[in-house]
């Protein structure tokens, strides 16, 4: 049984211009200890999917359909107080900007101890000792002295390590990491990602890694889901999706990444841009930009279907027997 099952999730925002659907009928699973990358352009709905899983959508947005099942138990309809127990203890979260994520007026030791005491019921002394060990684990030098320091006294990379410690200290089974390295220097990014990967492997924690950086995904994830306009375009093992993209959008994405190893004449570019949530085209959301679109693409929205390889794609090209079809 998978650790996390998301079934037909729909998240909507009522605005005065109508109802915006930010996440439209999204389904995927994450197994124990697995790293699922969720990749896509800004506005594709990846962060909101993560927020929906832990039910931290800002009103007036709301989950308007679908189910979220953690360890066999539905969590999307839990009463607020029970959901609070799930957050932190079962599912941890890491956000993008470590400077604003940490409360500037509390020492990091206090923030760590507080989290652990809430979920693990430790005494003050034990919590503090564990906090020091966590800081050492995430690679903060001189942890025992730094434990009473404040967030502004750390560099960006160190802060994000603290955030990782905070997310993992209650021993959750799943961590949702939303753009964990985007706000960091490039030289630090690799370190932080490696740290995250190692810790999650050690503690057996599954990860939903949301990012727009394909490089990070290629290095860290086991499987990857490509999102577009609030839907999943393609999902499958990382190697397959990267090397053998099936969905035309994923193809375009992969082709637009520069490579250090082969010579490429021109970086491919996908014409146009992702539609605004108010103007999602009928049928397949990608059809106006797709060079292989045909009538069915414009009329009916495709579901994820087998493509003959290890991944599944939401594309009518694979409608018959899972083999690629030529465009009509």
């Amino acid at each position, binding site marked *: 049984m998978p650790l996390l099952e998301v079934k037909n999730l729909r998240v909507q925002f009522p605005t*005065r211009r109508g109802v915006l659907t930010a996440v439209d009928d999204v389904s995927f699973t994450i197994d124990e200890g697995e790293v699922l990358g969720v990749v896509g352009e800004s506005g594709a709905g990846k962060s909101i999917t993560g927020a929906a899983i832990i039910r931290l959508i800002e009103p007036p947005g709301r989950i308007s359909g679908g189910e979220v099942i953690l360890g066999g138990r539905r969590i999307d309809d839990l009463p607020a107080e029970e959901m609070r127990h799930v957050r932190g203890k079962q599912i941890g979260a890491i956000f993008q900007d470590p400077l604003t994520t940490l409360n500037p007026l509390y020492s990091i030791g206090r923030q760590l101890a507080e989290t652990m005491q809430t979920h693990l019921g430790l005494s003050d002394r034990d919590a503090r000792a564990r906090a020091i060990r966590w800081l050492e684990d995430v690679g903060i030098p001189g942890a025992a002295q730094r434990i009473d320091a404040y967030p502004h006294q750390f560099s960006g990379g160190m802060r994000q390590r603290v955030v990782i410690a905070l997310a993992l200290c209650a021993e959750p089974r799943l961590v949702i990491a939303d753009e964990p390295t985007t706000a960091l220097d490039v030289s630090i990014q690799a370190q932080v990602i490696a740290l995250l990967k190692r810790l999650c492997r050690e503690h057996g924690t599954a990860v939903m890694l949301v990012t727009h950086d394909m490089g990070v995904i290629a290095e860290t994830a086991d499987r990857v889901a490509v999102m577009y306009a609030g839907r999943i375009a393609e999902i499958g093992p990382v190697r397959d999706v990267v090397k053998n993209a099936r969905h035309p959008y994923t193809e375009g994405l992969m082709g637009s990444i520069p490579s250090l190893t082969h010579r490429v004449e021109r970086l491919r570019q996908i*014409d*146009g841009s992702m*539609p*605004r949530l108010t*103007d*999602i*085209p009928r049928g397949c959301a990608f*059809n*106006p*930009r*797709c*060079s292989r*679109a045909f009538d069915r693409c*414009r009329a009916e929205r495709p579901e994820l279907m087998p493509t003959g390889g290890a991944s599944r794609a939401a594309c009518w090209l694979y409608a018959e027997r899972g083999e690629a079809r030529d*465009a009509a």
Partner: protein
Amino acid sequence: MAGEARGTEAAAAQPAPPMPRPMGPVARFLDSDLWYSFSHSPLTIVSAVVALTLIGGALFAPVLAPHNPFDLATLNLMDAFNPPAWLEGGERQFLLGTDDQGRDLLSTIMYGARISLFVGFCSVIFAMTLGVTIGLVAGFVGGTTDAVLMRIADIKLTFPAILVALLVDGLVRAALPRELHDRIALWVVIFAIGISNWVQYARTVRGSTLVEKNKEYVMAARVIGLSSSRIMTSHVLPNVMGPVLVIATLNLGFAILAEATLSFLGVGVPPTQPSLGTLIRIGNDFLFSGEWWITVFPGITLALMVLSVNLLGDWLRDALNPKLR
């Protein structure tokens, strides 16, 4: 927007969606977020109506007022101390009662509101002009000028506005001979209130100017050779006016209150041009003998005026605040 697929088969097969027709300015306004938030907030609509009524009544007092309280010929001491029309002893022609000299209260209130609003608006305009100029210069010129101006602002800020207004008023009063002072007292009050309140404008404009100063259009203007003052007024100024207007609206309520306070204390507008504050002060003397209406009705008018202006200012600030959208 969606649908811009160039050079693909899809484009040939699917016609481009029709371009939206450009809207005229009225239509644009009605479609804007501003109008939306206004028309959907009953409170704001009500306060706008109240404010307009009061302002209208004040502006057109000479035309609308049932009596002329300054025309001594029409006053009759026999009419003095009439209670409001709906109480025993009241008369229809004096709807809100009369004061100690037989003047109709409704009329004096309308004329009084006129003075209050006049002083309020003028002092806001004065404060805005002064503050915006100082802010523009400080932000644009920078360096020592900036440091000095901001230090002055800081010193000014250590003192509450009402104190500054009182002080300035007192100084001018002490400096000028009595008749001269009485003649220009109205302007002295405007000056005093205006000068007590310019710092907010200056700070905001300075901040925006500092941001705009580094933008390319300013550098371009300099390259063409426009003078600094020209750049400041025609280019930077329009871009920083938005928040300024919000401050001005919020300050209007304060300015009206400040004038009322000064007049109530006896150091505001001259007795020949009584504002609502003056009326309240006069009426205060009769509170204990039971003629409460002489002070209460001007008070209610003042409160309604400031309340509606404050509500409108609140709405404007929330509607224009990008963070709340």
